[in-house]
């Protein structure tokens, strides 16, 4: 976290500059950040730590909490994986091909960012309910989507899609066509070029996008609760369980689940980050 020392200068907090306003803007920004973001999060950790490690462990390993964490993390991972495939495909089509309506489609990708989650939630529930446009297609075969974990999966795919597309797209755009030309010149077929030259270069961005989609999906609440059915042990997500605990005025229990969720997400992101660093090194070293 240190700035490289400037040539021939003393080791100071801020490099001297002709511009005014450093003290006041930094002071205001850090104060506001501390009050709005850091203080609440510190209180959360402090509140949970009052339970002690054993107390948190006890809350986290009750069957209902374990089941909710499993539903949250497993469906989020599955949704992120589906988005990895289709998000890359969408990014590819938007960058590489020209077709009528391409710009419109490009703009539409951000819809999950712009549409309030509650609206997405009731719209998806209406579509995938047994009498909905899509649900009705599956109902005759006895397949239920809404009000089962499959419904949660659908909502999380919706929420996560733009993260993957928007991280892969710029990398694909900046990919130098000389590399593809070189590969073709050396006798590679188009498939070989795509799968062994272009796609490997997208992996670091793809991993970032998938990690962002996953992290968002784990914490997602609004779009999920309407379609999930919210049956304990089956389709109850961890954020909903936090809300339930709060409504029972079990602040400690709610904080414990929240801290466990934050910790698992943090560790997952850490692992993904190191995998990403590894793959980048391997790609750049190749």
């Amino acid at each position: 976290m240190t700035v490289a020392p400037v040539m021939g200068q003393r080791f100071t907090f801020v490099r001297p500059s002709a511009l005014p306003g450093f003290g006041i803007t930094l002071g205001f920004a850090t104060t506001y950040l501390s009050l709005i973001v850091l203080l609440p999060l510190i209180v959360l950790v402090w509140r949970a730590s009052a339970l002690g490690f054993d107390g948190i462990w006890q809350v986290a390993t009750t069957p209902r909490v374990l089941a909710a964490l499993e539903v949250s993390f497993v469906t989020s991972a599955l949704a992120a994986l589906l988005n990895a495939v289709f998000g890359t495909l969408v990014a590819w089509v938007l960058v590489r091909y020209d077709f009528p309506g391409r710009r419109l489609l490009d703009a539409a990708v951000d819809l999950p960012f712009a549409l309030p989650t509650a609206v997405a939630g009731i719209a998806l529930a209406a579509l995938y309910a047994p009498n909905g446009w899509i649900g009705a297609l599956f109902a005759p075969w006895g397949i239920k989507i809404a009000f089962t974990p499959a419904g949660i999966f659908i909502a999380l795919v919706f929420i996560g899609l733009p993260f993957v597309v928007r991280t892969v797209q710029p990398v694909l755009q900046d990919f130098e066509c000389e590399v593809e030309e070189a590969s073709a010149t050396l006798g590679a077929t188009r498939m070989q070029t795509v799968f062994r030259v272009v796609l490997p270069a997208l992996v670091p961005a793809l991993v970032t996008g998938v990690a962002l989609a996953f992290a968002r999906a784990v914490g997602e609440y609004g779009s999920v609760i309407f379609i999930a059915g919210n049956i304990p042990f089956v389709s109850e997500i961890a954020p909903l369980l936090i809300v339930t605990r709060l409504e029972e005025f079990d602040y400690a229990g709610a904080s414990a689940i929240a801290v466990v969720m934050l910790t698992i997400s943090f560790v997952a992101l850490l692992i993904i980050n190191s995998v990403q660093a590894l793959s980048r090194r391997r790609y750049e070293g190749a």
Partner: protein
Amino acid sequence: MRETALSESRPLQWLLIAVAVAFLALFLVLPLAAVFVEALHRGVGPLLATYTDADTLSAIWLTLIVAAITVPLNLVFGIAAAWAIAKFEFRGKSLLISLIDLPFSVSPVVSGLTFVLLFGAKGVFGPLLDDWDIKIIFAVPGIVLATVFVTFPFIARELIPLMQEQGTAEEEAALTLGASGLRTFMTVTLPNVRWALLYGVLLCNARAMGEFGAVSVVSGHIRGLTNTMPLQVEILYNEYNFVGAFAVSALLAGLALVTLAAKSLLEWRHAEGLPTARRH
């Protein structure tokens, strides 16, 4: 066209385009269409009944108030943070940048929870607030706080990269020519970042008006008093008033479409005024 060494064959291209379009139609367009169809399928009468209902109107009003407080607060923060981070070199800068993005990696429900732990009846400041007869949780201030938390990074993260790309040369020139610090900011810096600022405000506003999870935890769902539009959608839906729920949803979906349109327009017309990552 046959498959060449540098591009896929035409049929394969059309197949991939078809799959991508089908996927986006299924997951994005269909839910959006469902909102408007469900809102209108009983005709205009029930729709207008919802829009003239007193509880719905007060939910719309509260949503506007929350956004009107939240966006300026985060705008001032975004400008201050971007000025310090982009125009100066100081220790701990990258830590500060990661802390600004922190709210994006916290579940909205957890952010709501933190404010209950701070200001709720059994929270840290609960007894104190009780003595002074101030209500934050289950009242408007709590809703504003939760919304400010959730939308915290939006404006800062548009301004910081752009101002970093622009450097400090123009500001130094203005100062050398005798302009005051404030005048330099108003006449040099602000015009340079105005499109990115607008972009951040658009995204911040859309999220502020649409936030559900964080607000739901701190609101208490008191009809006519602490219900924002997304919470009103939930209440109407849970009462099986589907037309009403989709009628309010249609307003929010309209807001989302306007936001998307304005955002795309900025990306097409003013790409040079946005951070590099937004130019596509």
